[in-house]
């Protein structure tokens, strides 16, 4: 990957450890304007941690993170909001950006929750809240969108529509997207660059290249290999359940 002025965020050999255990280690990639980069990997493989590294949320990290923009929209995987706060959807939309009323309406309309604008945030269902989170992130017209499993809890029809919306927005705004997703169909069809994680970068490249990588098949099993054809070659390591790597003899 060559650095140019389209780069929005760049990770160089980054890692972070908690209580002497590495959550992720040696992660390098960059997100460029107009490109969608996806992180995939099993549970506990460090996808969310890597996203937080890129966002600069985690401190005391190994390696270097270069952030070239502060105009970022973030949809976290988990968000806990203290209900001692009286908060309507419209207040939440204004959290980090001053938006005009019609900008709020447009964004909520795009994710299909305009009718909830004056509702109390805590009375939303999981899927509705997720749509509000996405609307908030895109309403500020960010340079970089970081979406951590953005469609969790959204119904099947909405899921497809939201992924289409995300793709459309990246084209329209020309922003870069860092996406974490479990939906390999979406990842493989709509992404420019895939980083396959399992505590470290297992493999990375275009969806085609990753799908053809034996380590990808090993991580995701045979089902995943039906998405794009995979060819076999010798593995040099296997992954145990705690994420450590055993080298085959």
């Amino acid at each position, binding site marked *: 990957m060559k650095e140019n002025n389209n780069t929005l965020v760049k990770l160089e050999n980054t890692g972070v450890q908690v209580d002497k255990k590495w959550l992720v280690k040696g992660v390098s990639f960059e997100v460029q304007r107009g490109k969608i980069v996806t992180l995939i990997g099993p549970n506990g493989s460090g996808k969310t941690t890597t996203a937080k590294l890129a966002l600069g*949320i985690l401190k005391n990290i190994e390696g270097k993170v270069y952030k070239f923009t502060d105009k970022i929209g973030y949809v*976290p995987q988990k968000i806990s909001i*203290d209900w*001692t706060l*009286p*908060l*309507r959807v419209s*207040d939440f939309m204004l*959290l980090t950006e001053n938006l005009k009323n019609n900008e709020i309406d447009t964004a909520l309309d795009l994710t299909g929750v305009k009718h909830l604008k004056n509702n109390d945030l805590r009375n939303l269902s999981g899927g509705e809240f997720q749509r509000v989170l996405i609307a908030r992130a895109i309403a500020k017209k960010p340079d970089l969108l970081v979406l951590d499993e953005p469609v969790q809890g959204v119904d099947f029809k909405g899921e497809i529509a939201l992924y289409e919306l995300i793709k459309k927005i990246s084209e329209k705004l020309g922003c870069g997207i860092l996406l974490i997703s479990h939906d390999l169909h979406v990842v493989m069809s709509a992404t420019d660059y895939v980083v396959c994680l399992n505590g470290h970068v297992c493999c990375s490249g275009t969806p085609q290249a990753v799908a053809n990588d034996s380590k990808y098949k090993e991580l995701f099993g045979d089902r995943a290999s039906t998405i794009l054809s995979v060819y076999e070659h010798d593995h040099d390591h296997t992954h145990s359940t705690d994420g450590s790597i055993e080298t085959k003899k």
Partner: protein
Amino acid sequence: MFDDFFIRALAAGLGLAFVTGPLGCFVIWRRLSFFAGTLAHSALLGVTLAFSFDINISFSVLLVSSAIALILLRLQKTTKLPGDALLGLLAHSSLAIGLVVIGFLSYIRFDIMGLLFGDILAVNKKDLLVIWFGGAIILLILKIIWKPLFASTVNYELAEAEGMQPEKVNIIFTILMAAIIAISIKMVGILLITGMLIIPAAMARNLANNPQQMVVLSIIGGILAVLVGLFSSMQFNSASGPSIITAALLLFILSFLKINKLRQLKK
């Protein structure tokens, strides 16, 4: 007009209500009630140091409370003790040190009751200036940092990710808390300032459905508490500071009853 002690007390109390309203909302939202109490306890040490070194009381309290607050922020990161234990540790040790120092200053006659509960009726014109000017500065700074502070209150990681610098605004907010305690200690005292911060905001929470509304209601609640408290203290010859807090409590209870009535009506 400010020659009458009662007018001065009203002006001081109303000035205080304007500042404790919005700050109190953040105290409730961020679950800082005990934190506010700790800062107030440490104010006693500030007062005694002011007498020891012959410096301005408000200034000394601001310094000591800010120092305690920053020590706390540091300790929270470096020790494994839970937050409430750290607060208790700092609150009571600073209170104890303050009392020990008072013991050594035997050449000064201390009005301990005045320190603990304040004496709003003894506010002079200079105090009024401190309250109104200091309060205006606190409100101005709060307005400037409102957006990042609110964002980091709702969700710290989101605020950090989207460039709101939550750590920086947290420190500024902490110093604002120390400042309000510094300018109000003479009026309501160490033990009651936390009540002035929390109770009107708690009342507002019962009635509000968005943050701006809660701030406005909290200010109105504080103003009503000051008016009702001061006039009733004149009427019944009761202690003025405690009367203000009692009036705030009554307002809170009223707001609670109103909520329950509304719920019943909805059913």
